[in-house]
């Protein structure tokens, strides 16, 4: 366990010093929230009998931040490390492989928690979207289930990415359309029901619904069925990751 902490500490250092990872996981979601709030700020969204746009976008952007800190960030950084030969070198040491993976997952979950705090604070201070303190246990539950599941999916996804150059296009081609179709970028009430049905086949929509229910007063608080779907995706991801994850470079 102390070895996991050791690994985690250095993963944190490397993460915060990497301008690309800080921009895409921290800066980008904040910018998106500011843009959406500025452009659509005064409108209402027709869900739950009508909520303010900003009330809608705060949990939406937290959803995006969690996926970005876990699936996106892990898939990209692990492919880069694999193709650099760094994963192979690590396997040549006495460090057990699970320690390395646990360190990376820990890093992602901590970043996801920080993003929850940051976006929630901006929502509260900037746009008066109150932080629902009484719902904190449900919020944390949804976040941890989602973060863990999307970590597994991100690690599994590395098996489908052949090179460093392919990492960003593949990850973005998967995630960006699903953000749109799942209501993260475009509010639910503007999306045709067919699109929502399609998005229901993927985990992002379910995670967003679960997180929305936890965050926005008036809903179910804990959306067990959505969380269960997310968790099943996570378990499938974990199996694929265990089966197909590679430590040695694909190229060269």
């Amino acid at each position, binding site marked *: 366990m102390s070895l996991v902490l050791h690994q985690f500490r*250095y993963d944190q*250092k490397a993460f915060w010093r990497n301008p690309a990872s800080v921009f895409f996981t921290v800066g980008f979601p904040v910018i998106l929230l500011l843009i959406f709030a500025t452009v659509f700020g005064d409108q209402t969204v027709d869900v739950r009998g009508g909520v303010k746009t900003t009330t809608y976008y705060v949990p939406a952007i937290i959803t995006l931040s969690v996926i970005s800190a876990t699936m996106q960030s892990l898939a990209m950084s692990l492919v880069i490390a694999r193709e650099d*030969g*760094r994963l*192979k*070198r690590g396997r*040549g040491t*006495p460090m057990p492989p699970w320690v390395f993976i646990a360190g990376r997952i820990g890093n992602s979950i901590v970043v996801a928690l920080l993003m929850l705090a940051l976006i929630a604070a901006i929502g509260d201070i900037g746009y008066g979207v109150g932080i629902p303190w009484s719902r904190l246990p449900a919020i944390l539950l949804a976040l941890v289930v989602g973060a863990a599941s999307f970590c597994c999916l991100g690690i599994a996804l590395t098996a489908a990415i052949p090179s460093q150059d392919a990492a960003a296009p593949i990850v973005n081609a998967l995630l960006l359309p699903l953000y749109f179709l799942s209501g993260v970028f475009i509010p639910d009430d503007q999306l045709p029901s067919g699109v929502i049905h399609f998005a229901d086949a993927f985990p992002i929509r379910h995670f967003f619904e679960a997180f929305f229910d936890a965050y926005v007063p008036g809903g179910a608080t804990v959306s067990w069925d959505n969380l269960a779907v997310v968790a099943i995706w996570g378990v499938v991801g974990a199996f694929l990751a265990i089966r197909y994850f590679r430590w*040695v470079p694909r190229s060269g």
Partner: protein
Amino acid sequence: MGDHVISIRGLRKSYGDVEAVRGIDLDVRRGEVFAFLGPNGAGKTTTVEILEGYRRRGGGEVSVLGEDPEHADRRWRERIGIVLQSCRLDPYLTVRESLALYAGYYSAPRPIEETIELVGLAEKADARASALSGGQQRRLDVGMALIGDPELLFLDEPTTGFDPSARRQAWETIAGLRELGKTVFLTTHYMDEAQRLADRVTIIAKGEIVASGTPEDLGDRESRPARISYREDGREISVETTTPVRTLNELTGRALAEGRELEGLEVRRPSLEDVYLELTEP
């Protein structure tokens, strides 16, 4: 096995229909620098990856530090260090941090500052890996392989693609390992590198061992024909002989008797480079 740190008998490995390693034998003694020399694609990296436990073999017996690398555990990994042929460093960690990270993986690591000194990076200890030159990165690589204080160190083509001054620095670092009493298994395709660093050299070509010995007597260099050349009436004359003393005596005797010089007289032994190129000819 005696004092052999590595012992290989009849090692084979195929990729599909291609036989990369075709039944090789070799032994590496404790404390020596052993060079495994051969052109690209000769089977060097396949062999070294089997020894390091990265690859399964097709057949034969392999013992590294008394264990089969295919079934080796953490305790075995504590005793070896690996410098891969191509491996980048985490660009965002400093020299000291990279070494500290790896030191944490071992139960009895070497002191970090001492290891920084050993690989000659004291002035760069707080520089991030991305700010190091190619040669400095390679030396940090060696440092990370040494941080667990291994008995046996694998170096896979440590200077490929280096400029002459970076090669020289890397060589100095490797030569220093001998003084630490480490056994070093070095693969290279540079003859001069093997000659400069190794106690013993084995040459592999097309998956088979074609020569082995000390750099001095490799490939029976001493008993190969020498070439005597000179000019006579403006013509280049060249004689190949296995008895150079006798041939030279005859030639010079005749020239003396006839009262003339042998212009441009030269006796050449095949160089190590000549032997290597001849043995590994495609």
